[in-house]
């Protein structure tokens, strides 16, 4: 799904086709009423249409100007249709994605295991919460659920777009499966956790289609302002007729409605819902599902980001960075022992030790089989009791492990471990690393320095966030010393060391009490309460059902770094709204200078002085303003769908930039645009 979503361009032919039809369907006044600004335009268009028909039947001599009136009426309808088209375009992208998802929701059958233990084949739609089904390799999982027995590799590409299969197993944090995904190997027993129609795919379809879209808080506030402005302009235009009558310059309905439509904020009014839908859509293109638009908006307002250290700030694993021998031992013998002890160690840390030995000391990786050939080699795997691993080779005992464990091992051999060893290990800990001690026959040789590797580019990201006024807090289970060192290297503002889920929760509540909005990611069941408490909780798709339900967004890629992008999308959404509102209001100045002189030029020829654009005739001036007003909606659809370009800058700089572009631009552009249209229509002889 994600792949198809990413390739849908703004001007996709199919979407445009569907949007064209939808723009007419949306003319239904009951639907238009939800958008007060465009509803006024529609009513205006309807009134001019009636007046136009009346003019045809019984023309008023000297007043009726059929050509002009017809054009005004048509352009008013176009204004409404253009706004509907913008909304339909935004929805169209979602609908295209929903269609792809529906295909994944094909009719499947399920092997339900009844209470007596018998397996029966039923339709997937008959499954209810609590049913247990058996899914074998090659079958689709019939519904959302949790694995109660077994391990399987599952192809979740229908949901995530990621083609590599994932491992799902019973128990722990990887037990949730999604309906519509396919089991590739093995077999699992799944306990169904949601009824038909309420599954994850169903919710996804509803979300991307915009069916469940509710207006977000800022959108509601903006709508109120726009409705208020509409009423003000309605008053200004309605009362203008008495003033005109007093001045012996009675106006026609066409002119008055043209003025009204040009003045009310149609640009933002027509694009407002498209902006909202497009914001959700951008999230979906990043493979993030927001359960509500409110969450997207909250993301833009976030003050504090809680980021898990592992996987977000650092690469998942520690890597060997240095071998530090004790006095009297050579680097080479330490590297050799370290390599031997790690040959059978398949953990990423173990492999990094082998790599370091090869890179720094040219020690070739010895084949395990080669060593075992002597028959005297025995690999000692890591156990929770000994907390060491290593090997016995020709009577040599090589071990590596944590300091405490090795000290115990050394003491068991009758020797005393040196103060020097303590010193080295403490130094490594203080620097944020993890020391691993290597011993040969109960004698410590030296220390391997394992280091957390901070992901590339993170420190710049955090710097950008700081400029946006967002504080980053690193959450880690490490001790405070280690945490402080990594925090310094990564450039986060703060850290929470030795964090328990309770600590995390307390931190969120503390920040919220100070009036801040907090965003976090999480995947485990123990993250669920914090995810629910946070203002923006992004659950990983690989996480548990509990985590997914607690959060208000789900990241299908399960990439915790994406939280930063989510924040940027939220900000972009708000900025696009603000920019177009400013643009829309600033536009009105030019429209006044086009229409007002045109209205009263016949009575007061001196008003020509206000016709700063030098528009040809009163009719062409009014028509040009109406056409510009309609066209600007179409021209801004790409901006509304793509969003205003976002740069991580401080609010003061952003404001300066955007005021210049959308405020000043909004003042100047219509003067030029209306003049150009006036030239075109007078050349064409339309007015």
């Amino acid at each position, binding site marked *: 799904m994600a792949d198809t979503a990413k390739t849908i361009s703004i001007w996709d032919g199919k979407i445009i086709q569907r949007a064209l039809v939808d723009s007419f369907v949306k003319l239904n006044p009951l639907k238009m009423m939800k958008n007060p600004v465009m509803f006024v335009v529609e009513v205006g268009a309807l009134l001019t249409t009636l007046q136009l028909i009346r003019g045809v039947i019984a023309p008023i001599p000297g007043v009726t100007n059929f050509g002009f009136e017809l054009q005004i009426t048509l352009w008013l309808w176009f204004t409404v249709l253009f706004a509907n088209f913008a909304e339909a375009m935004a929805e169209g992208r979602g609908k295209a994605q929903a269609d792809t998802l529906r295909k994944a929701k094909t009719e499947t059958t399920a092997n339900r295991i009844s209470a007596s233990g018998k397996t029966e084949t039923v339709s997937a739609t008959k499954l209810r919460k609590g049913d247990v089904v058996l899914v074998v390799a090659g079958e689709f999982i019939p519904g959302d659920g949790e694995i109660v027995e077994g391990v399987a590799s599952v192809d979740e590409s229908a949901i995530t777009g990621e083609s590599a299969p994932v491992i799902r197993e019973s128990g722990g944090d990887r037990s949730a499966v999604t309906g519509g995904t396919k089991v590739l190997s093995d077999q699992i027993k799944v306990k169904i956790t949601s009824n038909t129609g309420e599954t994850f795919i169903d919710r996804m379809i509803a979300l991307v289609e915009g069916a469940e879209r509710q207006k977000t*808080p*800022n959108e*509601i*506030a*903006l709508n*109120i*302002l726009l*409705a*208020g402005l509409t009423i*003000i*302009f309605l*008053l*200004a235009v*309605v*009362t*203008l007729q*008495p*003033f*005109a009558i*007093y*001045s012996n*310059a009675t106006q026609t309905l066409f002119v008055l409605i043209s003025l009204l439509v040009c003045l009310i904020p149609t640009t933002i009014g027509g694009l407002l819902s498209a902006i909202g839908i497009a914001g959700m859509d951008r999230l979906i293109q990043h493979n993030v599902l927001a359960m509500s638009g409110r969450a997207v908006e909250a993301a*833009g*307002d976030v*003050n504090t980001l809680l980021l898990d250290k592992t996987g977000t700030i650092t690469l998942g694993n520690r890597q060997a960075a240095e071998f530090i021998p004790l006095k009297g031992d050579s680097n080479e013998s330490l590297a050799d022992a370290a390599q031997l002890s790690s040959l059978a160690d398949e953990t990423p840390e173990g492999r990094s030790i082998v790599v370091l030995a090869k890179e720094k000391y040219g020690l070739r990786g010895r084949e395990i089989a080669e060593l075992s050939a002597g028959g005297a080699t025995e690999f000692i795997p890591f156990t929770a009791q000994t907390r060491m691993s290593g090997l016995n080779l020709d009577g040599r005992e090589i071990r590596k492990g944590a300091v405490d464990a090795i000290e115990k091992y050394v003491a068991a051999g009758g020797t005393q471990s040196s103060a020097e060893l303590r010193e080295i290990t403490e130094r490594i800990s203080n620097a944020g690393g993890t020391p691993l001690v290597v011993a040969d026959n109960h004698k410590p040789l030296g220390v391997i320095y394992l280091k957390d590797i901070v992901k590339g580019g993170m420190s710049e990201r955090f710097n950008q966030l700081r*400029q*946006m*006024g*967002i*504080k980053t807090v690193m959450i880690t289970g490490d001790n405070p010393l280690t945490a402080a060192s990594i925090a310094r290297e990564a450039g986060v503002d703060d850290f929470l060391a030795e964090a328990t889920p309770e600590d995390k929760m307390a931190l969120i509540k503390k920040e919220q009490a*100070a*009036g*801040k909005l907090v965003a976090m990611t999480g995947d485990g069941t123990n993250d669920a309460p914090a995810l629910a408490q946070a203002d923006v909780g992004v659950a990983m798709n690989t996480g548990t059902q509990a985590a997914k339900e607690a959060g208000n967004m789900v990241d299908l890629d399960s990439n915790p770094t994406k939280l930063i992008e989510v924040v940027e999308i*939220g*900000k*972009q959404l*708000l*900025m696009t709204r*603000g*920019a177009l*509102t*400013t643009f829309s*209001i600033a536009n*009105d*100045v030019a429209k*006044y200078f086009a229409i*007002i002189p045109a209205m*009263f030029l016949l009575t*007061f020829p*001196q*008003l020509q002085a*206000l016709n700063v654009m030098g528009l040809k005739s009163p009719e062409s001036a009014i028509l040009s303003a109406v056409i510009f007003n309609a066209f600007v909606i179409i021209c801004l659809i790409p901006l509304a769908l793509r969003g205003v370009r976002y740069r991580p800058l*401080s*609010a*003061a700089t*952003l*404001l300066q930039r*955007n*005021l210049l572009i959308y*405020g000043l631009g909004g003042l100047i552009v219509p003067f030029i645009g209306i003049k150009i249209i006036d030239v075109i229509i007078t050349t064409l002889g339309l007015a």
Partner: protein
Amino acid sequence: MTGLQRHGWAVFAAMSVLFFVGVFVTYWAEARGNPMLAGVDQTASATQSGGNFEGKEVRFGIASSALFAVVTTDASCGAVNSMHDSYTPLGGMVPLANMMLGEVIFGGVGAGLYGILIFVILSVFIAGLMVGRTPEYMGKRIEAFDVQMATLVILVFPLVVLVLTAISVVSPDFGTSQLNNQGPHGLSEILYAYTSGAANNGSAFAGISANTLWYNSTIGMAMLLGRFFIIIPVLAIAGNLARKKAVPPSLGTFPVTTPLFTLLLVSIIVIVGALTFFPVLSLGPIVEHLLMNAGQAF
């Protein structure tokens, strides 16, 4: 009280800009004199102060009269030291426009500040979205309710002034019959009467016999709605903001202390005011000014 003294200066600067522009325009219009009195010496000299001196006192002269007219309509005072009705059309439009903006430039004693604060809230809301956050003012989020109330405030003025003026100008019996002048000037006279009433200024443009049942009762109504009705939504905003948790300022917070903010505030005041009243002003003082230049008076 808010500890944001620099914000206070930014708002004060916005008021000052509007004030000085007003004084300058009025003085310019008056000192320029009346082009229809061509042949009459209207230039300032040792023996006369020149300009349009009709309706002004010799001891005040053009400059002080212009200054007084602007101050009295900016600060919700209402006293006059010259006849506004006798000003040139543009000179008379400035006091009118000052009141139409809701007397937000400095404002009257006591209740003067909240007028401009409403415009501050609107500015913060309209432009605040452009920085990519829910708009905040003094650390308080500006949300639907606050916007609703602020919109209600700016709605009252056009409602009262425009509707009552509109009824009067098309009613010969009780409306236009009381006028001493016709044409655009007559429109200005009625408009001024209602604007002054609604803004609770009390200054009179004169040239209209307002002591009738219609004008007494409707201007009284304008005063009631224009002054006291506005207090309700303003108090509602205050109460609502007080209840909200304050968000500590950060780099991402909309700046309200910069010259840019001052400029934004001035633009919002002028654009919202102009957009509302430009049509009626263009049929009143503006067209009158153009006609005067063309040699026609009312």
